[in-house]
């Protein structure tokens, strides 16, 4: 490529008022975060009031997101408003909304104001990530999100495991950030721009320069950390197990959804010409064979290691690794259908996982642990939680009539269709094998709940309102998992329509 001019000032000045209008969801969440922080500092240590403020704020933010214009593009992709972005801003906000009750009903949570503030600031990170099609903004979004999540993971200072989780997540996360930043800087250095669509156009013109390939690999490594794909998953088990339950739920859901949305945009828009080919007999270098390898490894490793777990949260962590693998299938397949399938799957997965963590939270409060033995006899102690947990587990296993079943079908059929002459058949077979293996450990959780005798006696029971809040959240999540399984069209079509 020829002499590269640096970025020139745009000279088209966007008024701050317009900027504020288009970034209103983010602005509202920041304001609410500050408000919640202040309430936490001044008021008493009640957990309910900051929670209500946070919920109201998020609802308002969802409402404003719905009222955003259809299309807008600020600063060359830094803030893009499109149906897809708005839809996933709403999804991210909804996930945050579902996490708030978990935090409020968490008994050991000491400073709810500060915790909720970090949660909301993390949500801002999600919104920025989802709403951006420009590498610089994506990186800053990752940092906002990452910093909040580190703090959330280490929040419970009475628990050494939480500190360990925070430290581990921080070390791995910052290494991943370094990789991403290195990758992004190489991409920028080669293409002279950070806007994804321009990168795509420039790449399409000539052959792919070698350093660009390095940049792609580095960026992918960074995101593989974020979505906990093997072999970059090592932080996941400790964080899922050690972090406070709402933090773990948020890390497993919101952060993952946003990461998949952004990863999809980066590879399918920015790196589109370097697609390569992951088909078995005609592999071509590019990002898709890399993602395919990550997916296959994640599916196999995640599922097999999960078989050996006796702690439900660790089990969820390894199953999360496997699910990251399934979800990558859609990106490997590429195209509208593949991306839609990935987005659908990651969304329902996030809903399911928040629900599962909410049930784990209840069990932990009542029995003081989250091993299999603590779940024994849950069906007789609390049939409602047991029923909801079975909905979540079976959806993760991919059984009908739950959302996971349709999600897997959507993903696998997209992957099967792609790659010319069923070239991705090998990946589909690996994924099916993985989901076959996974049924065993999900059933083991259900076996503990329904079959095993009540081993641990109930120690605590949470106060009525908090119990009610937690139960209501679980009920809503379980109902949505069932509904999205029976009538997946509602979400699937919204996603398919909005994917460009």
């Amino acid at each position, binding site marked *: 490529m020829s002499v590269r001019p640096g970025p020139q000032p745009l000279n088209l000045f966007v008024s701050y008022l317009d900027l504020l209008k288009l970034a209103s969801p983010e602005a509202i969440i920041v304001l609410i975060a500050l408000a919640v922080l202040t309430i936490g500092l001044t008021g008493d240590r009640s957990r309910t009031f900051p929670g209500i403020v946070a919920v109201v704020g998020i609802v308002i933010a969802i409402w404003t997101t719905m009222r955003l214009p259809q299309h807008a593009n600020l600063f060359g992709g830094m803030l893009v408003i499109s149906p897809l972005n708005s839809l996933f801003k709403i999804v991210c906000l909804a996930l945050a909304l579902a996490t708030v009750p978990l935090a409020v009903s968490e008994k050991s949570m000491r400073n709810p104001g500060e915790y909720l503030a970090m949660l909301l600031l993390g949500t801002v990170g999600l919104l920025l990530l989802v709403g951006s099609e420009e590498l610089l903004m994506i990186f800053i979004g990752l940092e906002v999100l990452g910093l909040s999540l580190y703090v959330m993971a280490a929040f419970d200072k009475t628990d050494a495991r939480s500190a360990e989780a925070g430290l581990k997540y921080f070390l791995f996360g910052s290494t991943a950030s370094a990789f991403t930043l290195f990758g992004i800087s190489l991409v920028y250095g080669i293409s002279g721009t950070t806007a994804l669509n321009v990168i795509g156009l420039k790449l399409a013109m000539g052959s792919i320069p070698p350093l660009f390939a390095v940049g792609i690999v580095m960026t992918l490594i960074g995101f593989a950390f974020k979505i906990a794909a093997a072999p970059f998953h090592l932080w996941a088990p400790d964080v899922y197990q050690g972090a406070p339950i709402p933090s773990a739920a948020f890390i497993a859901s919101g952060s993952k959804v946003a990461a998949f949305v952004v990863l999809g945009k980066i590879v399918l828009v920015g790196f589109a010409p370097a697609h390569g080919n992951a088909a078995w007999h005609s592999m071509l270098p590019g990002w898709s064979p890399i993602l395919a390898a990550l997916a296959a490894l994640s599916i196999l490793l995640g599922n097999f290691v999960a078989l050996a777990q006796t702690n439900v949260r660790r089990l969820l962590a390894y199953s999360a690794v496997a699910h990251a693998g399934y979800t990558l299938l859609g990106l490997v397949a590429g195209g509208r259908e593949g991306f839609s399938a990935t987005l659908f799957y990651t969304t329902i997965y996030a809903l399911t996982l928040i629900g599962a963590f909410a049930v784990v939270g209840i069990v932990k409060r009542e029995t003081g642990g989250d091993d299999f033995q603590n779940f024994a006899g849950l069906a007789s102690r609390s049939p409602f939680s047991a029923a909801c947990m079975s909905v979540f587990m079976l959806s993760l296993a991919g059984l009908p009539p739950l959302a996971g079943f349709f999600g897997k079908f959507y993903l696998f*059929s997209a992957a099967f269709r792609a790659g010319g002459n*069923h070239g991705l058949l090998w990946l589909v077979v690996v994924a099916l*094998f993985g*989901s076959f293996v996974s049924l065993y450990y999900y*059933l083991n959780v*259900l*076996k503990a709940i*329904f*079959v095993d005798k009540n081993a641990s006696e109930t120690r605590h029971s949470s106060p009525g309102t908090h119990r009610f809040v937690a139960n209501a959240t679980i009920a809503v999540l379980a109902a949505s998992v069932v509904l999205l399984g029976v009538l*997946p069209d509602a979400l699937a079509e919204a996603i398919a329509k909005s994917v460009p």
Partner: protein
Amino acid sequence: MIAWTIYLTFAGAVIVLLLPRAFARWIALLAATAGFVVTLVTFFRPDVDLGHFTTVVRVPWIPALGMNYHLALDGISLTLILVTGLAAISAILFSWDVSERAKEFFFWLLLVVGGSYGVFLSADLFLLFLFYELVIVPKYFLIAIFGSTNKEYGAMKLTLYSFFGGALVFLGVIAAYVAGGSFDINQLSQFQFPSQLQWWAFPVLFLGFAVLAGIWPLHTWAPTGHVAAPTAGSMLLAGIVMKLGAYAALRVAMNLFPEGFRMWRTTFAVLAVIGIVYAAAVALRQRDLKFVIGYSSVSHMGFVLLGLTTANVFGVSGAVLQMFSHGVIGALLFAVAGTMIYRRTHTRDLDALAAMNLRRALPFAAFTFVVASAASMGIPGFSGFAAEITILIGVWKAYPAAVWVVGAGMVLVAAFTLRALKRSFFDDGLGSAALSAAAPGLSAGKISESSRDGRAALAPITVPEKVGAALLMFATVAVGFYPKILLDRIQPAVEAMRFLR
């Protein structure tokens, strides 16, 4: 109208959960009976076209991917719905005494039944697959919570095998959908799939379904599962669930990929023949009555698979008839073994039973078991004979050599059935010397001890049990004497399938 079988059953399942426990069994019985009545009405209505897979309901479901809520009916599915209803009613009657966690029990049971109705009626591939997978988990809970011998192992094994089959089916369904561009089974069955695709998709799909039908060598879930399951569970497994696999193999795998079917049918025929003989031989060596019946199920389902692979009208119609017949007989055998004998004597060991003189203690059970055994052996006058003779005619046309092997298998079936019959009911405990020679592990003292215990505790056969057994016996005799009633409905539907043309 026939679609109401599904709705009534699922509605029953939900109502069972909502109402107090005392109502659970009545509601379950009501739901199952209502479904059966609906089936019977449809069965005897002259205006229903059973020769083709005629649409009953069709509503767009997931238009984004082309899925419809599409139910259809022909003679094959109607026959299987009939046996589902029979097995469901009798299974509920035979679990009349379930008291612990009864709501859950009948909930899971009705889910299995409802899901099976769904499979038999689905005309949309995705819908069929959904119902097919829906049945897996309720089975697990039925066995793991309410089962007996080694229940958690048996339940997990059965579930994993089912899910493994499900994974293969998943692949086949996706292949059919992506290549054919539709989920409509009728439409897909007219579609010309490329030979290369058929070559690999057919065995994947057929094998995936056949796992549930107990194809050798993937049959090992069946004996352990049947043994571990509660009576109603074994009855449903033998009566309905194994048929799901065989039915779907016929409806989906063979119907969609006729070319692949022609390429592979000999292979599967060999597997089926091995299954018939092998399972019968193993059954001959079993000491647990339920294991004997479990292996006999595998052997009988081998007939079904063999009939399917003949690819002629006789063989396939016979296979469908055999599905009905084995559904009834298998359920009956498990009912005797599980509830009439095991619930009362707490043993299923043939040697222990031999010492108990059950013929005197439980005459009705003895009578039922004789009828069931006769039907199982294929004695004329029972449905087993009608079905197996039709299959054998088909086999004679397709694989003459196989008839001889299968004939040997039938002798083995008769041998182990008679052995089980004699040991369990018609051994007076006098031959204990011969017994201990055959089974050195069991001392004579132990036998007499357990027989004393057993005789003291034997309760008479209850009314629900009698009704359930009578229903099944009536079905096998009725079809045995007048198989035409089913064959007339099955044959046109079979003839309409593409692989015959």
